Protein backbone atom coordinates (compact mmCIF):
# COMPACT_ATOMS: atom_id res chain seq x y z
CA UNK A 1 0.00 0.00 0.00
CA UNK A 2 1.34 3.36 -1.02
CA UNK A 3 -0.78 5.89 0.83
CA UNK A 4 -3.56 6.15 3.41
CA UNK A 5 -6.97 6.03 1.78
CA UNK A 6 -9.48 4.96 4.43
CA UNK A 7 -12.64 5.67 2.40
CA UNK A 8 -11.35 3.95 -0.71
CA UNK A 9 -10.16 1.02 1.40
CA UNK A 10 -13.64 0.69 2.83
CA UNK A 11 -15.20 0.52 -0.63
CA UNK A 12 -12.50 -1.87 -1.79
CA UNK A 13 -13.49 -4.25 0.96
CA UNK A 14 -17.19 -3.85 0.22
CA UNK A 15 -16.80 -4.52 -3.52
CA UNK A 16 -14.41 -7.44 -3.04
CA UNK A 17 -16.73 -8.98 -0.51
CA UNK A 18 -19.63 -8.58 -2.94
CA UNK A 19 -17.52 -10.34 -5.57
CA UNK A 20 -16.74 -13.08 -3.10
CA UNK A 21 -20.45 -13.59 -2.37
CA UNK A 22 -21.22 -13.55 -6.11
CA UNK A 23 -18.71 -16.38 -6.64
CA UNK A 24 -19.54 -18.51 -3.63
CA UNK A 25 -23.31 -18.03 -3.34
CA UNK A 26 -24.26 -20.47 -6.13
CA UNK A 27 -22.19 -23.22 -4.48
CA UNK A 28 -23.81 -22.51 -1.10
CA UNK A 29 -27.32 -22.38 -2.54
CA UNK A 30 -26.79 -25.68 -4.37
CA UNK A 31 -25.53 -27.30 -1.17
CA UNK A 32 -28.43 -25.94 0.91
CA UNK A 33 -31.06 -26.88 -1.69
CA UNK A 34 -29.55 -30.38 -1.74
CA UNK A 35 -30.26 -30.73 1.97
CA UNK A 36 -34.00 -29.89 1.83
CA UNK A 37 -36.96 -32.17 1.21
CA UNK A 38 -39.37 -31.77 -1.70
CA UNK A 39 -41.66 -29.35 0.12
CA UNK A 40 -38.95 -27.12 1.59
CA UNK A 41 -36.95 -26.78 -1.61
CA UNK A 42 -40.02 -25.45 -3.42
CA UNK A 43 -40.87 -22.98 -0.66
CA UNK A 44 -40.82 -19.33 -1.73
CA UNK A 45 -38.46 -17.99 -0.52
CA UNK A 46 -36.44 -21.12 0.15
CA UNK A 47 -35.06 -21.36 3.68
CA UNK A 48 -31.33 -20.72 3.85
CA UNK A 49 -30.99 -22.96 6.90
CA UNK A 50 -29.82 -26.39 5.78
CA UNK A 51 -32.43 -29.14 5.97
CA UNK A 52 -31.77 -32.64 7.26
CA UNK A 53 -32.16 -34.72 4.09
CA UNK A 54 -28.71 -34.15 2.62
CA UNK A 55 -27.50 -37.75 2.55
CA UNK A 56 -30.89 -39.10 1.49
CA UNK A 57 -30.91 -36.74 -1.52
CA UNK A 58 -27.32 -37.53 -2.42
CA UNK A 59 -28.19 -41.22 -2.39
CA UNK A 60 -31.32 -40.72 -4.51
CA UNK A 61 -29.45 -38.59 -7.06
CA UNK A 62 -26.66 -41.17 -7.11
CA UNK A 63 -29.02 -44.02 -7.97
CA UNK A 64 -31.40 -42.03 -10.26
CA UNK A 65 -28.64 -40.84 -12.55
CA UNK A 66 -26.55 -43.97 -11.95
CA UNK A 67 -23.63 -41.71 -11.04
CA UNK A 68 -21.16 -44.39 -9.84
CA UNK A 69 -20.28 -45.80 -13.27
CA UNK A 70 -20.73 -42.36 -14.87
CA UNK A 71 -18.19 -40.76 -12.56
CA UNK A 72 -15.85 -43.63 -13.36
CA UNK A 73 -16.31 -42.96 -17.10
CA UNK A 74 -15.66 -39.25 -16.56
CA UNK A 75 -12.54 -40.10 -14.64
CA UNK A 76 -11.22 -42.47 -17.33
CA UNK A 77 -11.91 -39.90 -20.04
CA UNK A 78 -10.34 -36.98 -18.15
CA UNK A 79 -7.28 -38.99 -17.08
CA UNK A 80 -6.90 -40.41 -20.59
CA UNK A 81 -7.04 -36.99 -22.23
CA UNK A 82 -4.64 -35.49 -19.66
CA UNK A 83 -2.12 -38.33 -20.05
CA UNK A 84 -2.43 -38.37 -23.84
CA UNK A 85 -1.91 -34.63 -24.06
CA UNK A 86 1.06 -34.61 -21.70
CA UNK A 87 2.84 -37.35 -23.68
CA UNK A 88 1.93 -36.53 -27.28
CA UNK A 89 2.51 -32.78 -26.98
CA UNK A 90 5.93 -33.38 -25.44
CA UNK A 91 6.93 -35.65 -28.33
CA UNK A 92 5.79 -33.16 -30.96
CA UNK A 93 7.38 -30.15 -29.30
CA UNK A 94 10.65 -32.09 -29.03
CA UNK A 95 10.52 -32.84 -32.73
CA UNK A 96 9.79 -29.24 -33.69
CA UNK A 97 12.37 -27.65 -31.42
CA UNK A 98 15.31 -30.05 -31.47
CA UNK A 99 15.45 -31.16 -35.09
CA UNK A 100 15.97 -29.48 -38.43
CA UNK A 101 14.18 -31.25 -41.22
CA UNK A 102 12.41 -30.22 -44.40
CA UNK A 103 8.75 -29.39 -43.75
CA UNK A 104 9.33 -28.61 -40.09
CA UNK A 105 7.63 -25.23 -40.36
CA UNK A 106 4.78 -26.83 -42.29
CA UNK A 107 4.22 -29.23 -39.39
CA UNK A 108 4.36 -26.32 -36.98
CA UNK A 109 1.65 -24.45 -38.86
CA UNK A 110 -0.48 -27.56 -39.40
CA UNK A 111 -0.59 -27.94 -35.64
CA UNK A 112 -1.03 -24.24 -34.96
CA UNK A 113 -4.14 -24.02 -37.16
CA UNK A 114 -5.95 -26.56 -34.97
CA UNK A 115 -6.15 -23.87 -32.28
CA UNK A 116 -8.48 -21.87 -34.48
CA UNK A 117 -11.24 -24.43 -34.86
CA UNK A 118 -12.70 -25.94 -31.72
CA UNK A 119 -14.37 -29.35 -31.76
CA UNK A 120 -17.77 -27.74 -31.23
CA UNK A 121 -17.91 -26.24 -34.72
CA UNK A 122 -16.96 -29.43 -36.52
CA UNK A 123 -18.92 -31.95 -34.47
CA UNK A 124 -20.97 -33.39 -37.33
CA UNK A 125 -18.11 -34.58 -39.58
CA UNK A 126 -15.96 -35.58 -36.58
CA UNK A 127 -18.81 -37.79 -35.47
CA UNK A 128 -18.83 -39.42 -38.92
CA UNK A 129 -15.08 -40.07 -38.67
CA UNK A 130 -15.35 -41.64 -35.22
CA UNK A 131 -18.19 -43.87 -36.42
CA UNK A 132 -15.58 -45.40 -38.72
CA UNK A 133 -12.18 -44.11 -37.80
CA UNK A 134 -10.52 -45.73 -40.81
CA UNK A 135 -12.85 -44.04 -43.32
CA UNK A 136 -10.33 -41.28 -44.19
CA UNK A 137 -7.74 -43.93 -45.08
CA UNK A 138 -10.27 -45.96 -47.04
CA UNK A 139 -11.21 -42.87 -49.01
CA UNK A 140 -7.56 -42.07 -49.72
CA UNK A 141 -6.89 -45.61 -50.90
CA UNK A 142 -9.96 -45.54 -53.13
CA UNK A 143 -9.00 -42.26 -54.72
CA UNK A 144 -5.34 -43.10 -55.24
CA UNK A 145 -6.21 -46.49 -56.68
CA UNK A 146 -4.38 -48.46 -54.01
CA UNK A 147 -7.48 -50.43 -53.07
CA UNK A 148 -8.09 -51.18 -56.74
CA UNK A 149 -4.50 -52.41 -57.01
CA UNK A 150 -4.80 -54.59 -53.92
CA UNK A 151 -8.04 -56.06 -55.20
CA UNK A 152 -6.44 -56.87 -58.54
CA UNK A 153 -3.43 -58.51 -57.02
CA UNK A 154 -4.84 -60.40 -54.07
CA UNK A 155 -8.51 -60.54 -54.95
CA UNK A 156 -9.44 -59.16 -51.56
CA UNK A 157 -11.78 -56.21 -51.52
CA UNK A 158 -10.42 -53.56 -49.19
CA UNK A 159 -12.98 -52.27 -46.72
CA UNK A 160 -11.50 -50.77 -43.62
CA UNK A 161 -13.88 -50.32 -40.75
CA UNK A 162 -13.33 -49.56 -37.08
CA UNK A 163 -16.14 -47.94 -35.18
CA UNK A 164 -15.25 -46.01 -32.05
CA UNK A 165 -18.71 -44.92 -30.96
CA UNK A 166 -19.39 -45.89 -27.36
CA UNK A 167 -15.77 -46.55 -26.52
CA UNK A 168 -13.21 -44.80 -24.36
CA UNK A 169 -10.90 -44.45 -27.35
CA UNK A 170 -13.61 -42.63 -29.27
CA UNK A 171 -14.23 -40.34 -26.30
CA UNK A 172 -10.57 -39.54 -25.75
CA UNK A 173 -8.82 -39.39 -29.14
CA UNK A 174 -10.62 -36.42 -30.78
CA UNK A 175 -10.14 -34.39 -27.59
CA UNK A 176 -6.37 -34.90 -27.79
CA UNK A 177 -6.22 -33.73 -31.41
CA UNK A 178 -5.58 -30.04 -30.70
CA UNK A 179 -2.47 -27.94 -30.29
CA UNK A 180 -2.85 -26.60 -26.75
CA UNK A 181 -0.04 -28.48 -25.01
CA UNK A 182 2.43 -28.45 -27.88
CA UNK A 183 3.07 -24.73 -27.56
CA UNK A 184 3.42 -24.88 -23.80
CA UNK A 185 6.26 -27.38 -24.21
CA UNK A 186 7.74 -25.49 -27.15
CA UNK A 187 8.02 -22.28 -25.14
CA UNK A 188 9.68 -24.19 -22.32
CA UNK A 189 12.09 -26.18 -24.51
CA UNK A 190 13.28 -22.95 -26.10
CA UNK A 191 14.38 -21.70 -22.67
CA UNK A 192 16.43 -24.82 -21.92
CA UNK A 193 20.11 -23.79 -22.30
CA UNK A 194 21.94 -25.08 -25.35
CA UNK A 195 24.94 -25.96 -23.16
CA UNK A 196 22.88 -28.75 -21.64
CA UNK A 197 22.26 -30.28 -25.06
CA UNK A 198 25.92 -29.90 -25.98
CA UNK A 199 27.06 -31.54 -22.76
CA UNK A 200 24.63 -34.41 -23.25
CA UNK A 201 25.80 -34.96 -26.81
CA UNK A 202 29.43 -34.83 -25.77
CA UNK A 203 28.71 -37.56 -23.26
CA UNK A 204 27.33 -39.61 -26.11
CA UNK A 205 23.62 -39.26 -25.48
CA UNK A 206 21.38 -39.63 -28.51
CA UNK A 207 18.12 -37.79 -29.10
CA UNK A 208 15.96 -40.31 -27.28
CA UNK A 209 18.32 -40.49 -24.30
CA UNK A 210 18.44 -36.69 -24.02
CA UNK A 211 14.65 -36.47 -24.24
CA UNK A 212 13.91 -39.12 -21.60
CA UNK A 213 16.74 -38.48 -19.14
CA UNK A 214 17.15 -34.69 -19.32
CA UNK A 215 14.30 -32.88 -21.01
CA UNK A 216 11.36 -34.73 -19.45
CA UNK A 217 12.60 -34.44 -15.85
CA UNK A 218 13.12 -30.71 -16.44
CA UNK A 219 9.55 -30.37 -17.74
CA UNK A 220 7.93 -31.76 -14.60
CA UNK A 221 6.30 -28.42 -13.71
CA UNK A 222 4.90 -28.01 -17.18
CA UNK A 223 3.53 -31.52 -17.10
CA UNK A 224 1.73 -30.88 -13.81
CA UNK A 225 0.26 -27.64 -15.11
CA UNK A 226 -0.81 -29.09 -18.45
CA UNK A 227 -2.17 -32.26 -16.82
CA UNK A 228 -4.31 -30.27 -14.38
CA UNK A 229 -5.76 -28.01 -17.07
CA UNK A 230 -6.45 -30.88 -19.44
CA UNK A 231 -8.01 -33.04 -16.74
CA UNK A 232 -10.48 -30.27 -15.87
CA UNK A 233 -11.12 -29.41 -19.48
CA UNK A 234 -11.87 -33.02 -20.38
CA UNK A 235 -13.97 -33.63 -17.27
CA UNK A 236 -16.12 -30.64 -18.23
CA UNK A 237 -16.66 -31.70 -21.85
CA UNK A 238 -20.30 -31.96 -22.80
CA UNK A 239 -21.14 -31.93 -26.52
CA UNK A 240 -18.71 -34.62 -27.51
CA UNK A 241 -19.62 -37.27 -24.90
CA UNK A 242 -23.29 -36.46 -25.47
CA UNK A 243 -22.94 -37.29 -29.15
CA UNK A 244 -20.80 -40.35 -29.24
CA UNK A 245 -22.19 -42.22 -26.24
CA UNK A 246 -25.48 -43.38 -27.66
CA UNK A 247 -25.31 -46.26 -25.21
CA UNK A 248 -25.63 -45.53 -21.48
CA UNK A 249 -22.62 -47.64 -20.50
CA UNK A 250 -20.13 -45.01 -21.68
CA UNK A 251 -22.01 -41.82 -20.71
CA UNK A 252 -20.15 -39.38 -18.46
CA UNK A 253 -21.28 -37.69 -15.24
CA UNK A 254 -21.65 -34.30 -16.91
CA UNK A 255 -23.94 -35.60 -19.66
CA UNK A 256 -26.01 -37.43 -17.04
CA UNK A 257 -27.04 -34.10 -15.49
CA UNK A 258 -29.71 -33.91 -18.16
CA UNK A 259 -31.51 -36.83 -16.52
CA UNK A 260 -31.85 -34.76 -13.36
CA UNK A 261 -33.65 -31.71 -14.80
CA UNK A 262 -37.05 -31.77 -13.11
CA UNK A 263 -39.74 -32.55 -15.66
CA UNK A 264 -42.45 -30.02 -16.22
CA UNK A 265 -45.43 -32.23 -15.35
CA UNK A 266 -44.53 -33.74 -11.98
CA UNK A 267 -43.42 -32.31 -8.67
CA UNK A 268 -40.19 -30.37 -9.31
CA UNK A 269 -37.56 -32.45 -7.52
CA UNK A 270 -35.02 -29.66 -7.26
CA UNK A 271 -33.46 -31.15 -4.12
CA UNK A 272 -32.43 -34.26 -6.08
CA UNK A 273 -31.25 -32.19 -9.04
CA UNK A 274 -29.11 -30.01 -6.78
CA UNK A 275 -27.67 -33.05 -4.96
CA UNK A 276 -26.65 -34.46 -8.36
CA UNK A 277 -25.18 -31.11 -9.42
CA UNK A 278 -23.16 -31.01 -6.22
CA UNK A 279 -21.72 -34.49 -6.87
CA UNK A 280 -20.74 -33.57 -10.44
CA UNK A 281 -19.28 -30.20 -9.39
CA UNK A 282 -17.20 -31.61 -6.58
CA UNK A 283 -14.36 -33.49 -8.37
CA UNK A 284 -13.26 -30.53 -10.54
CA UNK A 285 -13.62 -28.20 -7.56
CA UNK A 286 -11.37 -30.45 -5.48
CA UNK A 287 -8.81 -30.51 -8.29
CA UNK A 288 -8.89 -26.70 -8.54
CA UNK A 289 -8.48 -26.26 -4.78
CA UNK A 290 -5.68 -28.82 -4.37
CA UNK A 291 -3.84 -28.03 -7.59
CA UNK A 292 -4.44 -24.27 -7.55
CA UNK A 293 -0.84 -23.36 -8.22
CA UNK A 294 -0.60 -25.63 -11.27
CA UNK A 295 -4.04 -24.69 -12.44
CA UNK A 296 -3.27 -20.96 -12.53
CA UNK A 297 0.15 -21.52 -14.03
CA UNK A 298 -1.19 -23.87 -16.67
CA UNK A 299 -4.04 -21.54 -17.61
CA UNK A 300 -1.76 -18.59 -18.11
CA UNK A 301 0.92 -20.61 -19.91
CA UNK A 302 -1.26 -22.67 -22.28
CA UNK A 303 -3.20 -19.72 -23.64
CA UNK A 304 -0.22 -17.62 -24.59
Amino acid at each position, binding site marked *: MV*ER*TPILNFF*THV*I*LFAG*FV*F*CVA*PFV*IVAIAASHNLKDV*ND*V*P*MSLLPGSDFWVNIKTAWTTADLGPKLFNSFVMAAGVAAGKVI*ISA*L*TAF*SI*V*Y*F*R*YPGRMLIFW*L*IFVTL*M*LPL*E*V*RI*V*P*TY*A*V*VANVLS*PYQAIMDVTGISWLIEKISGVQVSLSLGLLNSYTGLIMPLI*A*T*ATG*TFLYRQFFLTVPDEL*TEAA*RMDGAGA*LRFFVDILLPLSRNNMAALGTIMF*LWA*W*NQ*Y*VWPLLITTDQSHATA*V*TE*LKQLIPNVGGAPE*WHIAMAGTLI*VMLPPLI*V*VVLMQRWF*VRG*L*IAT*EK
Partner: protein
Amino acid sequence: MEKRVTFGKWTIGILFAVPQLILIFTFFYWPAGQAVYWSLTLQQPWGGGNIWVGLDNFRSILANADYWNSITASLTFAAISTGLAMVIALVLATLTDRQLAGSRLYRVVLIWPYGIAAPALALAFRFILAPEAGFMAAVNKFWPGFWDPGLNGADAMASVIVAFSWKYVGYNFIFFLAALQAIPRSLIEAAAMDGSGVIRRFWDIQFPLITPTIFFLLVINITESFQDSFGIVDIMTAGGPANATNLMVYKIYSDGFRGLDYSGAAAQSIILMLLIILLTIVQFRFIERRVHYR
Protein backbone atom coordinates in the same frame (compact mmCIF):
# COMPACT_ATOMS: atom_id res chain seq x y z
CA MET B 1 13.55 -18.23 -31.91
CA GLU B 2 15.58 -21.21 -32.96
CA LYS B 3 17.82 -23.68 -31.22
CA ARG B 4 21.49 -23.47 -32.07
CA VAL B 5 22.25 -27.04 -31.04
CA THR B 6 20.10 -29.72 -32.61
CA PHE B 7 20.20 -33.43 -33.24
CA GLY B 8 21.42 -34.67 -36.57
CA LYS B 9 19.22 -37.59 -37.52
CA TRP B 10 16.12 -35.84 -38.71
CA THR B 11 14.33 -39.07 -39.64
CA ILE B 12 14.07 -39.78 -35.91
CA GLY B 13 12.89 -36.21 -35.43
CA ILE B 14 9.95 -36.67 -37.76
CA LEU B 15 9.01 -39.90 -36.00
CA PHE B 16 8.47 -37.92 -32.78
CA ALA B 17 5.86 -35.78 -34.52
CA VAL B 18 4.04 -38.67 -36.18
CA PRO B 19 1.52 -39.52 -33.39
CA GLN B 20 0.29 -35.93 -33.24
CA LEU B 21 0.15 -35.66 -37.02
CA ILE B 22 -1.93 -38.84 -37.35
CA LEU B 23 -4.33 -37.57 -34.68
CA ILE B 24 -4.84 -34.12 -36.15
CA PHE B 25 -5.16 -35.53 -39.66
CA THR B 26 -7.82 -38.06 -38.64
CA PHE B 27 -9.78 -35.95 -36.17
CA PHE B 28 -9.15 -32.42 -37.39
CA TYR B 29 -8.19 -31.97 -41.02
CA TRP B 30 -10.28 -34.78 -42.44
CA PRO B 31 -13.49 -33.68 -40.63
CA ALA B 32 -12.83 -30.03 -41.48
CA GLY B 33 -12.39 -30.95 -45.14
CA GLN B 34 -15.47 -33.14 -44.91
CA ALA B 35 -17.44 -30.17 -43.57
CA VAL B 36 -16.44 -28.10 -46.59
CA TYR B 37 -17.39 -30.95 -48.94
CA TRP B 38 -20.73 -31.58 -47.25
CA SER B 39 -21.61 -27.92 -47.31
CA LEU B 40 -21.34 -28.02 -51.10
CA THR B 41 -23.36 -31.22 -51.58
CA LEU B 42 -26.69 -32.64 -50.52
CA GLN B 43 -25.94 -35.45 -48.08
CA GLN B 44 -28.19 -38.38 -47.40
CA PRO B 45 -28.43 -38.81 -43.60
CA TRP B 46 -28.19 -42.59 -43.80
CA GLY B 47 -25.23 -42.67 -46.14
CA GLY B 48 -25.43 -43.49 -49.83
CA GLY B 49 -25.30 -40.95 -52.60
CA ASN B 50 -24.80 -37.24 -52.51
CA ILE B 51 -25.50 -34.57 -55.08
CA TRP B 52 -23.27 -31.61 -55.89
CA VAL B 53 -25.27 -28.46 -55.29
CA GLY B 54 -22.60 -25.76 -55.23
CA LEU B 55 -23.50 -22.92 -52.93
CA ASP B 56 -27.20 -23.81 -52.65
CA ASN B 57 -26.87 -24.85 -49.01
CA PHE B 58 -25.43 -21.46 -48.13
CA ARG B 59 -28.12 -19.68 -50.11
CA SER B 60 -30.94 -21.51 -48.37
CA ILE B 61 -29.41 -20.90 -44.94
CA LEU B 62 -28.85 -17.22 -45.56
CA ALA B 63 -32.42 -16.88 -46.78
CA ASN B 64 -33.69 -18.44 -43.57
CA ALA B 65 -35.03 -16.05 -40.93
CA ASP B 66 -34.34 -18.61 -38.17
CA TYR B 67 -30.66 -18.55 -39.05
CA TRP B 68 -30.41 -14.76 -38.89
CA ASN B 69 -32.22 -14.90 -35.59
CA SER B 70 -29.59 -17.35 -34.37
CA ILE B 71 -26.76 -15.06 -35.49
CA THR B 72 -28.35 -12.06 -33.74
CA ALA B 73 -28.84 -14.09 -30.57
CA SER B 74 -25.21 -15.30 -30.64
CA LEU B 75 -23.84 -11.80 -31.16
CA THR B 76 -26.04 -10.34 -28.40
CA PHE B 77 -24.94 -13.12 -26.09
CA ALA B 78 -21.28 -12.65 -26.99
CA ALA B 79 -21.33 -8.87 -26.55
CA ILE B 80 -23.18 -8.73 -23.22
CA SER B 81 -21.59 -11.72 -21.52
CA THR B 82 -18.06 -10.73 -22.62
CA GLY B 83 -18.64 -7.17 -21.43
CA LEU B 84 -20.03 -8.25 -18.06
CA ALA B 85 -17.42 -10.92 -17.38
CA MET B 86 -14.53 -8.64 -18.30
CA VAL B 87 -15.64 -5.50 -16.47
CA ILE B 88 -16.48 -7.34 -13.24
CA ALA B 89 -13.23 -9.28 -13.40
CA LEU B 90 -11.17 -6.14 -14.06
CA VAL B 91 -12.73 -4.30 -11.10
CA LEU B 92 -12.18 -7.26 -8.78
CA ALA B 93 -8.62 -7.85 -9.99
CA THR B 94 -7.64 -4.18 -9.66
CA LEU B 95 -9.00 -4.04 -6.13
CA THR B 96 -7.37 -7.36 -5.18
CA ASP B 97 -4.09 -6.00 -6.54
CA ARG B 98 -4.23 -3.23 -3.90
CA GLN B 99 -3.27 -6.05 -1.52
CA LEU B 100 -5.34 -5.05 1.46
CA ALA B 101 -6.02 -7.58 4.20
CA GLY B 102 -7.81 -10.65 2.87
CA SER B 103 -6.67 -10.32 -0.73
CA ARG B 104 -5.13 -13.79 -0.56
CA LEU B 105 -8.55 -15.24 0.15
CA TYR B 106 -10.06 -13.54 -2.91
CA ARG B 107 -7.24 -14.76 -5.07
CA VAL B 108 -8.07 -18.32 -4.11
CA VAL B 109 -11.85 -18.23 -4.16
CA LEU B 110 -12.62 -16.08 -7.21
CA ILE B 111 -11.28 -18.69 -9.64
CA TRP B 112 -13.42 -21.56 -8.38
CA PRO B 113 -16.28 -20.97 -10.82
CA TYR B 114 -13.98 -21.53 -13.79
CA GLY B 115 -13.37 -25.14 -12.75
CA ILE B 116 -17.05 -26.03 -12.95
CA ALA B 117 -18.55 -27.73 -16.01
CA ALA B 118 -20.88 -25.46 -17.98
CA PRO B 119 -23.83 -27.89 -17.76
CA ALA B 120 -23.42 -28.28 -13.99
CA LEU B 121 -23.45 -24.56 -13.32
CA ALA B 122 -26.29 -24.24 -15.82
CA LEU B 123 -28.40 -26.64 -13.77
CA ALA B 124 -27.51 -24.72 -10.59
CA PHE B 125 -28.54 -21.42 -12.20
CA ARG B 126 -31.64 -23.00 -13.65
CA PHE B 127 -32.72 -23.64 -10.08
CA ILE B 128 -31.54 -20.29 -8.70
CA LEU B 129 -33.31 -18.41 -11.50
CA ALA B 130 -36.37 -20.68 -11.72
CA PRO B 131 -39.60 -18.67 -11.72
CA GLU B 132 -41.54 -21.03 -9.43
CA ALA B 133 -38.91 -22.13 -6.89
CA GLY B 134 -35.57 -20.65 -5.90
CA PHE B 135 -34.72 -16.97 -5.76
CA MET B 136 -36.37 -15.24 -8.63
CA ALA B 137 -39.60 -16.82 -7.34
CA ALA B 138 -39.40 -14.50 -4.34
CA VAL B 139 -39.24 -11.54 -6.73
CA ASN B 140 -42.16 -12.96 -8.70
CA LYS B 141 -44.23 -13.29 -5.56
CA PHE B 142 -43.72 -9.63 -4.84
CA TRP B 143 -44.18 -8.57 -8.45
CA PRO B 144 -46.18 -11.28 -10.29
CA GLY B 145 -45.17 -12.10 -13.84
CA PHE B 146 -41.91 -10.15 -13.59
CA TRP B 147 -39.62 -13.06 -14.41
CA ASP B 148 -40.32 -16.11 -16.57
CA PRO B 149 -37.45 -17.46 -18.66
CA GLY B 150 -39.74 -20.28 -19.85
CA LEU B 151 -41.96 -17.84 -21.73
CA ASN B 152 -40.05 -14.60 -22.11
CA GLY B 153 -37.14 -14.68 -24.55
CA ALA B 154 -35.30 -11.75 -22.96
CA ASP B 155 -35.47 -13.41 -19.52
CA ALA B 156 -34.13 -16.65 -20.97
CA MET B 157 -31.26 -14.80 -22.65
CA ALA B 158 -30.51 -12.99 -19.38
CA SER B 159 -30.32 -16.33 -17.49
CA VAL B 160 -27.90 -17.80 -20.01
CA ILE B 161 -25.76 -14.66 -19.88
CA VAL B 162 -25.63 -14.68 -16.06
CA ALA B 163 -24.56 -18.33 -15.98
CA PHE B 164 -21.85 -17.84 -18.61
CA SER B 165 -20.52 -14.61 -17.07
CA TRP B 166 -20.33 -16.24 -13.65
CA LYS B 167 -17.93 -18.83 -15.01
CA TYR B 168 -15.77 -16.44 -17.03
CA VAL B 169 -15.36 -13.78 -14.34
CA GLY B 170 -13.04 -16.22 -12.60
CA TYR B 171 -11.09 -16.90 -15.77
CA ASN B 172 -10.61 -13.23 -16.65
CA PHE B 173 -9.73 -12.48 -13.04
CA ILE B 174 -6.69 -14.80 -13.15
CA PHE B 175 -5.32 -13.12 -16.25
CA PHE B 176 -6.00 -9.56 -15.11
CA LEU B 177 -4.41 -10.19 -11.74
CA ALA B 178 -1.33 -11.76 -13.33
CA ALA B 179 -1.02 -8.77 -15.68
CA LEU B 180 -1.45 -6.23 -12.87
CA GLN B 181 1.12 -7.94 -10.70
CA ALA B 182 3.63 -7.86 -13.54
CA ILE B 183 3.59 -4.04 -13.47
CA PRO B 184 6.67 -2.87 -11.56
CA ARG B 185 5.75 -1.58 -8.12
CA SER B 186 8.15 1.33 -8.53
CA LEU B 187 6.02 2.85 -11.32
CA ILE B 188 2.99 3.01 -9.05
CA GLU B 189 5.05 4.38 -6.17
CA ALA B 190 6.65 7.06 -8.33
CA ALA B 191 3.24 8.20 -9.55
CA ALA B 192 1.97 8.30 -5.97
CA MET B 193 4.97 10.46 -5.00
CA ASP B 194 3.97 12.84 -7.76
CA GLY B 195 0.61 13.14 -6.10
CA SER B 196 -1.70 11.07 -8.29
CA GLY B 197 -4.51 9.21 -6.57
CA VAL B 198 -5.56 5.59 -6.90
CA ILE B 199 -8.06 6.19 -9.70
CA ARG B 200 -5.72 8.43 -11.67
CA ARG B 201 -3.00 5.82 -11.37
CA PHE B 202 -5.36 3.17 -12.67
CA TRP B 203 -6.29 5.06 -15.84
CA ASP B 204 -2.86 6.47 -16.56
CA ILE B 205 -0.57 3.62 -15.62
CA GLN B 206 -2.23 0.29 -14.95
CA PHE B 207 -4.89 0.37 -17.65
CA PRO B 208 -2.53 1.25 -20.54
CA LEU B 209 -0.06 -1.37 -19.38
CA ILE B 210 -2.58 -4.19 -19.30
CA THR B 211 -4.17 -3.44 -22.70
CA PRO B 212 -2.48 -6.49 -24.28
CA THR B 213 -4.23 -8.68 -21.70
CA ILE B 214 -7.54 -6.94 -22.27
CA PHE B 215 -7.19 -7.47 -25.97
CA PHE B 216 -6.25 -11.11 -25.55
CA LEU B 217 -9.16 -11.78 -23.19
CA LEU B 218 -11.57 -10.07 -25.55
CA VAL B 219 -10.69 -12.54 -28.30
CA ILE B 220 -10.80 -15.56 -25.99
CA ASN B 221 -14.09 -14.54 -24.32
CA ILE B 222 -15.89 -14.01 -27.62
CA THR B 223 -14.67 -17.30 -29.10
CA GLU B 224 -15.55 -19.14 -25.88
CA SER B 225 -18.99 -17.54 -25.91
CA PHE B 226 -19.58 -19.32 -29.21
CA GLN B 227 -18.38 -22.70 -27.93
CA ASP B 228 -18.80 -23.03 -24.20
CA SER B 229 -22.37 -21.73 -24.36
CA PHE B 230 -23.62 -25.06 -25.73
CA GLY B 231 -23.89 -26.87 -22.39
CA ILE B 232 -25.49 -23.87 -20.72
CA VAL B 233 -28.11 -23.46 -23.44
CA ASP B 234 -28.84 -27.18 -23.64
CA ILE B 235 -29.50 -27.49 -19.90
CA MET B 236 -31.14 -24.13 -19.20
CA THR B 237 -33.34 -23.31 -22.17
CA ALA B 238 -32.82 -25.88 -24.97
CA GLY B 239 -32.72 -22.96 -27.40
CA GLY B 240 -36.17 -21.70 -26.38
CA PRO B 241 -38.49 -20.03 -25.82
CA ALA B 242 -39.34 -19.46 -29.50
CA ASN B 243 -35.64 -19.78 -30.51
CA ALA B 244 -34.68 -16.79 -28.34
CA THR B 245 -31.53 -18.56 -27.12
CA ASN B 246 -30.90 -20.75 -30.16
CA LEU B 247 -27.21 -19.84 -30.38
CA MET B 248 -25.19 -20.85 -33.45
CA VAL B 249 -23.44 -23.94 -32.07
CA TYR B 250 -26.69 -25.17 -30.58
CA LYS B 251 -28.42 -24.74 -33.94
CA ILE B 252 -25.67 -26.68 -35.71
CA TYR B 253 -26.16 -29.51 -33.26
CA SER B 254 -29.94 -29.56 -33.43
CA ASP B 255 -30.10 -29.23 -37.22
CA GLY B 256 -27.41 -31.85 -37.75
CA PHE B 257 -28.38 -34.48 -35.21
CA ARG B 258 -32.07 -33.89 -34.59
CA GLY B 259 -33.03 -32.59 -38.03
CA LEU B 260 -30.48 -34.89 -39.76
CA ASP B 261 -29.69 -32.07 -42.15
CA TYR B 262 -25.96 -32.75 -42.47
CA SER B 263 -25.44 -30.41 -45.41
CA GLY B 264 -27.20 -27.51 -43.72
CA ALA B 265 -25.29 -28.11 -40.47
CA ALA B 266 -21.99 -28.30 -42.36
CA ALA B 267 -22.72 -25.03 -44.15
CA GLN B 268 -23.51 -23.43 -40.78
CA SER B 269 -20.24 -24.78 -39.38
CA ILE B 270 -18.35 -23.18 -42.25
CA ILE B 271 -20.05 -19.83 -41.65
CA LEU B 272 -19.27 -20.02 -37.92
CA MET B 273 -15.65 -20.90 -38.70
CA LEU B 274 -15.40 -17.89 -41.01
CA LEU B 275 -17.03 -15.68 -38.40
CA ILE B 276 -14.50 -16.71 -35.73
CA ILE B 277 -11.59 -16.16 -38.12
CA LEU B 278 -13.04 -12.79 -39.20
CA LEU B 279 -13.49 -11.66 -35.60
CA THR B 280 -9.90 -12.54 -34.83
CA ILE B 281 -8.64 -10.58 -37.83
CA VAL B 282 -10.84 -7.53 -37.10
CA GLN B 283 -9.71 -7.48 -33.52
CA PHE B 284 -6.07 -7.75 -34.53
CA ARG B 285 -6.34 -5.01 -37.14
CA PHE B 286 -8.41 -2.44 -35.33
CA ILE B 287 -7.84 -3.01 -31.68
CA GLU B 288 -4.16 -3.74 -31.83
CA ARG B 289 -3.44 -0.19 -33.02
CA ARG B 290 -4.59 1.24 -29.74
CA VAL B 291 -2.85 -1.41 -27.68
CA HIS B 292 0.32 -0.64 -25.85
CA TYR B 293 2.85 -3.45 -26.07
CA ARG B 294 5.88 -3.40 -23.87
